[in-house]
């Protein structure tokens, strides 16, 4: 078993992802690391968060304890709304997602291939798993960012020449943000753009089980 550097904790992966979001964008966040993203944005961020259960304009989690069963996010958690929010049914919600009206989708991942294939809904050896809206988000959003650990607990790479797990969608990923690196999917495969503080390019190459192009201006992440 190869040892790889620890790199960023989950909170800092979310912080790095937050730098990809701009005022006025419509953004859907998946379950897991992606849900940590909003807390890293400035108060007046102007990003409109979409939730596939039929809400545009989520503010954040509702910690008041007054649970309203019809104010929840896609993970079933109580949420608050921004001014200017709206509600709609699931057909409209997925027309928004699948018709390319969501600017950025941020999903967790199990494996990403160098052609952009994503696998994130089923671990064959565990059995089971459910895709919920992940296949629609992966194939429909204008830009897909995958946020995940670079390697499994066993130390094998989650960035591969070809996914071995069942796919979520083909050639859908645009950017991967891991605990070790920021990697863009290009027509030529993985392109290393940034490394986590304290992580070397060589360590990222060692942790990636596919050819890795290195950007001429590769640099350390700004966090």
């Amino acid at each position, binding site marked *: 078993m190869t040892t790889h550097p620890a790199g960023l904790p989950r909170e800092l992966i979310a912080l790095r992802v937050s730098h990809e979001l701009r005022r006025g964008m419509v953004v859907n966040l998946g379950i897991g690391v992606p849900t940590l993203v909003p807390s890293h944005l400035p108060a007046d961020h102007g990003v409109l968060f979409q939730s*596939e259960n039929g809400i545009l304009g989520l503010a954040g989690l509702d910690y008041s304890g007054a649970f309203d069963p019809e104010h929840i996010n*896609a993970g079933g958690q*109580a949420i608050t709304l921004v001014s200017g929010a709206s509600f709609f049914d699931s057909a409209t919600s997925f027309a928004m997602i699948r018709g390319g009206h969501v600017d950025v989708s941020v999903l967790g991942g199990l494996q990403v291939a160098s052609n952009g294939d994503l696998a994130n809904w089923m671990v064959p050896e*565990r059995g089971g798993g459910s895709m*919920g809206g992940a*296949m629609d988000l992966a194939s429909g959003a204008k830009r897909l960012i995958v946020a995940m650990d670079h390697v499994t607990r066993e130390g094998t790479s989650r960035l591969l020449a070809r996914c071995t797990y069942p796919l979520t*969608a083909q050639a859908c990923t645009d950017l991967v943000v891991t605990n070790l690196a920021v990697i863009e999917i290009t027509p030529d495969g993985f392109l290393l753009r940034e490394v986590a503080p304290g992580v070397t390019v060589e360590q990222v190459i060692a942790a990636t089980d596919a050819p890795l192009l290195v950007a001429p201006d590769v640099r350390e992440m700004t966090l």
Partner: protein
Amino acid sequence: MVATVYDTPDAALEGIGDGVRVMFGGFVTAGTPSNLIRALRRRGTRGILGMANNIGFGDLLDELCEDGQLAGMIATFAIRASSAKKSRFEDQYRRGEVTLELSPQGTFVERIRAGGAGLGGVLTRTGLGTPVAEGKRTVEVQGVTYLLEEPLRADVALLKAQRADRLGNIEYRASGRNFNPIMAMAADLVIVEVEEIVEVGEIDPERVGTPAAFVDRIVQCAPVQVFTP
């Protein structure tokens, strides 16, 4: 036809027999017809093929597994990737006692909409190159390949909303919409539990989420307190 008002959720299920195909509205706790699900549990109807976004995830549907009433499910979220907490449905699925057809959520709602709108299916990119596409046809349109997903209909839809008038015009609240207005189009018998039934004219025509033409039976019930797991 416009709707009929029933006094109890049990009465509203009048005529539903074994082997029925049932759509359940709701997304986790939102817009979930918990009173109607409990009435179906009490009724003892067996061999149910259920269609719902989720089972065992804040929805009470798992209670239908207590005594083996479900024959199977078509759903988008039914088995967790992690094995931390298993539902009865998952246990029965792993023992081969119930069937499960997983459908991506956007495909699931479009299939129901197609069933309700008289359309022959859905042409979508979602699921191509994944296990979802196995055994299904593809159709090429304008140079792009799409998966052909077949429409879904049910014998009965059990739905939940905020209010109804006595004609059956339905008003939803917040994210309680989700699958409810779509399933209201796709079943032969549409039964809606609401927190309040009001007189005709009390719901603003601009706020009707499901027009009375789609609704067969309505029943007023206090909402069941359900929490997210």
